[in-house]
């Protein structure tokens, strides 16, 4: 886009932009070096004791201990467990919600719409607390249930938008060859909608994985609690910083891996499934109220099978 806005830069402009780039790079590098040095500098506490800097070996030696990695592994496993169970349930719920919302019967459609609005407007954390206190389940069940319901509502909206964006002829053809309306929905419309919305659904599952960390608040010992809470209270506060670093790295690794898979899926299912084009996504964007994933992709997403990233404008995990 930018290159269209003005004439192609000549040698002078190119040299200037290279110079800016180098200056900018030096500035950013200097900022990072400063940050690393300040973190590494020994500091004096209010009480006058001198603490070693953050990169001091005494702050990192616990990572020689295999047991530490084993606990971190257990934490990561607990996180994945919760995310896995919640993801399956969320997709199932999403399918049900989408059928409810796209139903021809007002008796089903309107209550589903109200319930969906309710679920989507509430913080996941509040929902977790709600389930924990009202149904007095364990922390695991409360986390799973809240994540499943919340993300199910969002996936349901995405699927409904996918169904709406299909050409009318698909449904008419299904009815014309004698399928019942339910069969048409299941066997003709739904598979297409699902494939079309797959990148958005996977993006939502990444949000779900990130949101499992909310179960920290409920006391479920997942990666965050094991890493930064249990281990640092066991080994002492001085490891808090390094443990935080490692936990962050584990989360980043898991999420980036999933995003990478999402991108691949988006690319491979795209063309076959009738890739969401700018126009039909725009059309569907205007029919829905608040699904973040969709609006993100109305704009740029369609361009390069890149719906994956924009979909997460969600932020809600944000």
């Amino acid at each position, binding site marked *: *886009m930018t290159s269209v806005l003005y004439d192609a830069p000549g040698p002078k402009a190119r040299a200037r932009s290279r110079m800016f780039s180098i200056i900018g790079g030096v500035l950013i590098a200097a900022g990072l070096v400063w940050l690393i040095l300040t973190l590494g500098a020994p500091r004096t506490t209010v009480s006058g004791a001198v603490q070693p800097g953050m990169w001091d070996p005494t702050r990192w030696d616990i990572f020689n201990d295999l047991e530490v990695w084993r606990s971190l592994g257990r934490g990561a496993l607990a996180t994945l467990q919760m995310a896995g169970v919640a993801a399956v349930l969320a997709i199932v719920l999403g399918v049900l919600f989408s059928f409810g919302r796209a139903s021809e019967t007002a008796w089903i459609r309107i209550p589903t719409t109200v319930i969906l609005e309710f679920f989507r407007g509430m*913080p996941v954390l*509040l929902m977790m607390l709600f389930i924990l206190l009202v149904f007095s389940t364990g922390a695991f069940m409360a986390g799973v249930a809240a994540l499943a319901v919340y993300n199910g509502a969002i996936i349901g909206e995405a699927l409904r938008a996918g169904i709406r964006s299909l050409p009318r002829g698909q449904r008419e053809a299904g009815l014309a060859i004698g399928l019942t309306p339910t069969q048409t929905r299941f066997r003709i419309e739904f598979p297409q909608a699902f494939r079309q919305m797959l990148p958005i659904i996977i993006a939502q599952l990444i949000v779900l994985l990130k949101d499992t960390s909310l179960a920290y608040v409920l006391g479920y010992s997942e990666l965050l609690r094991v890493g930064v809470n249990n281990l640092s209270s066991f080994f002492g506060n001085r490891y808090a910083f390094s443990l935080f670093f490692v936990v962050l790295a584990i989360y980043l690794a898991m999420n980036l891996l999933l995003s990478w898979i999402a991108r691949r899926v988006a690319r491979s299912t795209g063309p076959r499934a009738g890739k969401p084009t700018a126009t039909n996504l725009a059309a569907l964007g205007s029919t829905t109220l608040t699904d973040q994933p969709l609006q993100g992709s109305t*704009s*740029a997403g369609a361009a390069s099978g890149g719906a994956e990233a924009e979909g997460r404008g969600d*932020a809600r995990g944000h």
Partner: protein
Amino acid sequence: MDAVIENLPKLLDGFRGTLILLLLAGSGAFIVGVIIAAMRISPVASFRGFATVYTEIVRNAPLTLVLFFCATLLPYLQFQPGYFPLAVIGLTVYTSPFIAEALRSGVNGVPVGQAEAARSVGLTFGQTLSYVVMPQAVRMVIPPLINVFIALTKNTSVAGAFFVFELFASARQITNVRGDAVLAILLGVAAFYLLITIPLGILAGRVERRVAVLR
């Protein structure tokens, strides 16, 4: 129901906390987001690289982890402005990449043909931007931006778990005292959240329909 009414002052207090968090973190995130988005589409490669790395790291870190860092590790590093400002910093940092992405996708979403057409009828750089590209980009950006703010509203609840008094924290306190009326209290708190999120959602839908660019 009586539990909600008798604790209404406390709930309203919490609601005020949520609103202030939303306002401060929202405007902070908007400013940082604009800067990041500008870096991301700038011709300077090193800025682009920095903005991309920032976006990827922050977007893939869970909010709880970000707020944990702000609430416990920053004080440990002798930066202690109090829990409320720390939560605002955390929410700002966490929300900014989402705002940046919404802005960037809006600008990128204007088809190249629009700018090409503007250029070919002889508009200058400034005219192209102000008459053709920006009016379309701004329209496309508003609904996703509102959605980011809806998400932020819900995310402020996590701050309640890190020593900040807002709606979620008030819910926890009240349910601790009135264990017999948990359902009513939680529904009451949910209503307060919905009071912010549902109107915003309706607004987003309406804006989107009104300003939809027909091409």
